[in-house]
């Protein structure tokens, strides 16, 4: 059969994208859908259900909505995302971006120091902060607060959620800074000059020009950081493993604990479904709202 040149080319393209799409399908797309069907079973790693699982309808979800630990996990996740991504990283990143655009010395050095935490693998982040938060008078943070006359604390026990929020903020300042720097530098300078000639104050310029012009970047940042913070696992797992007493059990950890320490895969999958639905909603909202160009 004779194919036209164009037709053949289009077929070649399909052929070329197949391996990538196949790999993503097997390891991401199919599992995401499979999570839905698993959530309707009593699949488990222990007991009779490990040999042969059966369909249990929506009972995993009924149990989920009755489980105070699930609601606790949702609440912790929400606080974690708001505390670290929406507030902590954003404020510090924005501040750094603004300050580093000023004519100052040692710019490259400050820049490098702020960026360093972002490059560190999650496991090492946990490791570093376990030492920072070590209890007893020799713990690094305890020595620092001792200068201000504060007694040694058991940081990861007394303030677990704040502790992990501080760690995640630490890790993400650079990302916010880099993104917002590019946003700030793309605002045309003549707008500022025109405003200044019209007699606008610094404060007015900031709220009326900088922030509105920066809005698309801020939304992009909020979207990316919300989605990535939502997906965090290793950092919290190495630091606190969801404890003490479930106070840092973000959704990812809750799924892991239900699936691999309580060995209830079906129930774990039903939590995963909730998590998938939430992040997909955020994604669709973003794509629709901001008319993403592709």
């Amino acid at each position, binding site marked *: 059969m004779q194919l036209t040149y164009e037709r053949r080319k289009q077929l070649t393209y399909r052929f070329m994208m197949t391996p990538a799409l196949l790999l*993503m399908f097997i390891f*991401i797309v199919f599992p995401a859908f499979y999570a839905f069907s698993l959530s309707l079973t009593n699949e488990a790693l222990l007991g009779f259900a490990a040999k042969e699982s059966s369909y249990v309808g929506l009972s995993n979800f009924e149990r989920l909505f009755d489980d105070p630990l699930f609601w606790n996990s949702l609440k912790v996740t929400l606080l974690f995302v708001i505390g670290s991504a929406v507030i902590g990283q954003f404020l510090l990143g924005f501040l750094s971006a603004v300050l580093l655009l000023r004519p100052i010395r040692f710019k490259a050095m400050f820049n490098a120091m702020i960026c360093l935490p972002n490059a560190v*693998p999650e496991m*090492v982040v946990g490791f570093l902060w376990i030492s920072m938060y070590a209890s007893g008078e020799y713990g*690094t943070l305890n020595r620092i607060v001792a200068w201000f006359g504060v007694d040694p604390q058991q940081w990861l026990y007394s303030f677990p959620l704040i502790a992990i929020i501080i760690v995640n903020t630490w890790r993400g300042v650079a990302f916010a800074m880099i993104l917002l720097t590019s946003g700030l530098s793309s605002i045309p300078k003549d707008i500022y000059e025109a405003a200044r000639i019209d007699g606008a104050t610094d404060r007015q310029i900031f709220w009326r020009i900088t922030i509105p012009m920066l809005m698309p970047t801020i939304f992009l940042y909020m979207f990316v950081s919300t989605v990535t913070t939502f997906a965090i696992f290793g950092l919290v797992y190495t630091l606190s493993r969801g404890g003490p007493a479930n106070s840092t059990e973000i959704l990812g950890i809750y799924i892991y604990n239900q699936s691999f320490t309580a060995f209830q895969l079906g129930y774990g999958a039903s939590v995963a479904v909730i998590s998938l639905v939430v992040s997909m909603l955020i994604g669709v909202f973003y794509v629709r709202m901001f008319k993403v160009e592709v």
Partner: protein
Amino acid sequence: MTLASNTVASTGTNQKMTKSQFKTYLTLILISLYCMVPFIWVVLASVDPKASQFLRIPESVSMEHYWNLFANQSGLRWILNSIVINVSATIIALVFAGFGGYAISRTKAWWKLPLLYAIILVRIVPPPALIVPVYKVMLTLNDWVNALINAVFTDVATQQTMSRAFSFVDGYLGLILILAAMQLPLAIWIMKTFFDAIPIDYEESAAIDGATQWQTVRKVLIPLAMPGFAAAGLFAFINAWGDFLMPLMFTSSPELQTLPLGLFRAFLRVDAIDYGFLTALAVIYTLPAVIAFSFARKFLTQTFSGGVKG
């Protein structure tokens, strides 16, 4: 509030300028301290013969922990495993994303747009939500592969060797493929963006000049897309290198342990933690990521706008 003064020449008096400059430096120094303090311990402990969980100034500096890494069986094994697994995953992701990104950029099929949106959604799937279904998928693939291996090879030793190499659970192949798959959405986006910027005329004129398909790819497309490959490769490597969840799920043999998991498990030996060894290893583990990140930094903005915004 003088936040907006960044882009305009400061018009204030000399004294006012100094004051605001002082505030600027002070704030930046505080933020930098926040960012740097946690590193002090790991660096100091790694050269301290009496390293502990607590920060202390070493009485003497020695590189013994670093040398121990290479004398110590598990340390070197973790490093080499990490390199093999992550480099392989990066290469696979790059090759697949190269083809995929090129094809998506060039295709005129009606489903191009839906496909692109789909890839954005794939990119934001939270990996922890996938652990259960992926675990089941990997188990199934694992059973198939091992059944195949047991059918093809009769010798137990060969069966074990092949099974270690090609198993999906507790084998190299599974971990490499899943790490590669996780990096694909971003890598495809980056490559697609870069190929979008290369006019199709270049390829066509090369073809008219009598270049073969392969020559066009090698002499025209790859050199032009090189920055794209660099960016995609760096990000794929950084993400795969730092990943903790997949090794946690899919490796258990000590022979297969990679750096993040080895470090974590060594840390779980609550009664006997060798902090000098672990901190030296943590430094070694962090270095490639930091180096890759310093190269990747300049692509970061492009990538995120590329990956999500378009």
